[in-house]
């Protein structure tokens, strides 16, 4: 009699009930009492199906137990012990996927001097100061970028403006928007826009422009004055909080057609998730706040050490409970890290690549080089073409082939791989020296966070499933550049 053991799936509990997260399909299922008991037995040790039936038969009835075992085997939540592990299938599309998002680095100059910055700080990839890349993107390059995007996109396209400080090159941004709208109308496509800014240059006419063109706006801000001023400083060392606070409030008051998000960089020295969240929502007025641990080589003063991620996770979990409570009552909550993960869980995202970089999303440098994403803009090693000559399909294919999750042997047995797929290329490059490496330094954190969001998902689906309808269908909200 062949023995069975738990398959490629993660069993988690929420609200007193047991759930399954199946890899690689990313299906979430609720287990009933019988299937929960079967899984419990198999977690102790491998057992034959007949043994399971005789052990649980008196409690649930032999027929029900046998039926449950059969269901679990068919769903691959349970597999035979002698069954060879299935390799992660590797499928690289033969024809190019349509481009959906282009991140245009309209400048690499910045009026702030944040010491953790990945573009200017100690971990920078490209020589931005006096390098080959021009400081400003020209109007001609911006137009060529728009042309490339609209040539390679499907019916809808998205442009994200990025920097440096994006608004330092407001002039080219404006012409790019006008040109993109005209060209898109001629081609019968739709185009929309977003930008990321440090808020220092949000003058009334800029706010008017952003609201008028329905921009999605992400503000890089770290929290209340003492937190913001710790790293986000001007070149002379002065903090930026006092300058940006009224400007952000003015933007939030005027631009109400799309939610404006705050994007917080968490460092070892400013790890106060709840305080930052409360300040940015209640006092500043943001609807959504997203947090990201700083990308940094190990050993930097702001970098998280081994145990730092545990603390980040604990604080995230604390705030995530608020999200759950709100959702159970049908209210929205602004902790966007939970919202984004719930959306992916709801759709059952199972990723072959960690993100759309080099695929549906490309970054353009000030010179017009096409790179994986904005974080690699201008890096010769990560170039996939130019806006004038188009995307180098051979390089793109080689990139996708080399970065497929099937290549990351460390990820092959991880249940969180459908959502993580090895994590951010830029983080891997900075921490481990190569974009092809999985981010092994934060596996526990990713699994812990995914588990938390799965639990929230399980609980909401039991108590208030109507809340999850907002995530229905393939929502292709354009990613925010961070």
């Amino acid at each position: 009699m062949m023995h069975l053991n738990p398959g490629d799936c993660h069993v988690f509990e929420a609200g007193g009930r047991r759930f399954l997260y199946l890899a690689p399909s990313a299906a979430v299922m609720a287990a009933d009492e019988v299937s929960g008991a079967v899984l419990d037995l198999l977690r102790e040790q491998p057992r034959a199906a007949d043994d399971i039936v005789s052990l649980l038969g008196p409690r649930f009835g032999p027929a029900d137990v046998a039926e449950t075992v059969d269901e679990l085997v068919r769903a691959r939540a349970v597999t035979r012990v002698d069954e060879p592990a299935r390799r992660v299938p590797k499928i690289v599309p033969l024809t190019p996927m349509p481009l959906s998002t282009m991140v245009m680095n309209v400048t690499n100059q910045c009026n702030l001097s944040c010491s953790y910055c990945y573009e200017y700080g100690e971990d920078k990839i490209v020589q931005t100061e006096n390098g080959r890349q021009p400081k400003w993107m020209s109007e001609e390059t911006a137009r060529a970028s728009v042309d490339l995007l609209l040539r390679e996109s499907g019916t809808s396209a998205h442009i994200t403006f990025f920097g440096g400080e994006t608004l330092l090159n407001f002039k080219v941004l404006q012409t790019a928007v006008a040109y993109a709208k005209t060209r898109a109308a001629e081609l019968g496509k739709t185009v929309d826009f977003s930008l990321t800014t440090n808020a220092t240059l949000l003058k009334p006419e800029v706010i008017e422009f952003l609201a008028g063109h329905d921009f999605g706006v992400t503000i890089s801000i770290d929290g209340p004055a003492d937190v913001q001023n710790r790293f986000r400083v001007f070149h002379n060392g002065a903090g930026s909080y006092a300058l940006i606070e009224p400007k952000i409030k003015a933007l939030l008051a005027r631009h109400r057609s799309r939610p404006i998000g705050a994007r917080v960089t968490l460092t070892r020295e400013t790890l106060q998730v709840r305080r930052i969240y409360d300040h940015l929502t209640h006092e500043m007025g943001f609807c959504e706040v997203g947090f990201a641990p700083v990308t940094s080589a190990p050993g930097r003063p702001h970098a998280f050490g081994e145990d730092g991620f545990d603390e980040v996770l604990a604080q995230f979990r604390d705030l995530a409970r608020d999200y759950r409570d709100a959702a159970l009552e049908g209210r929205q909550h602004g902790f966007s890290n939970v919202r984004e993960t719930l959306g992916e869980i709801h759709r059952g995202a199972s990723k072959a690549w960690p993100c759309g970089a080099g695929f549906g999303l490309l970054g353009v440098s000030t010179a017009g080089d096409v790179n994986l994403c904005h974080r690699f803009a201008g890096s010769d090693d990560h170039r996939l073409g130019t806006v004038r000559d188009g995307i180098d399909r051979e390089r793109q294919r080689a990139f996708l082939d080399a970065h497929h999750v099937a290549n990351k042997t460390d990820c092959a047995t991880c249940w969180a791989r459908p959502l993580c797929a090895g994590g951010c290329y830029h983080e891997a490059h900075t921490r481990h020296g190569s974009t092809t490496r999985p981010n092994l330094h934060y596996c526990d954190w990713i699994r812990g966070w995914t588990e938390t969001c799965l639990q929230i998902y399980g609980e909401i689906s039991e108590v208030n499933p109507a809340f999850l309808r907002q995530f229905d269908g393939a929502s292709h909200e354009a990613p925010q550049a961070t």
Partner: protein
Amino acid sequence: MKHLKPLNEKAHRLERALEPDPGAQPPGAASPDVPERDVVGLALQQPQGPHIPLGCSTIFSPGWEVDRTGGTAGLCQPVERDLFDCHLGCFWPAQVPDQLNHAPDWVKKCAAAQKDWRNIDVIFP
């Protein structure tokens, strides 16, 4: 499924894949008694479960005999399939020159048939 309740969109799709709608007619089934099979050509004579079918009607390599116009200019399979399909997938021996040895220089000219088949040229037995 009775003991696992699908929650997210992927789980619903998985459930549909594992348990197709019982009311739906299986594709190709002649009557409700015939179990669902993708290919039902010889199903009535064959044992249940996975098996190696015999007979060329179960082997699908359409388009290697003639193209959609009845000619041979637009074959969808390379012509070398002509040499192997009947031999490997079926029992028909006549088109396998290396075994029947109508091609005297087979070994010399066509060591790797998939690559060298053009060298065989016209054969006069």
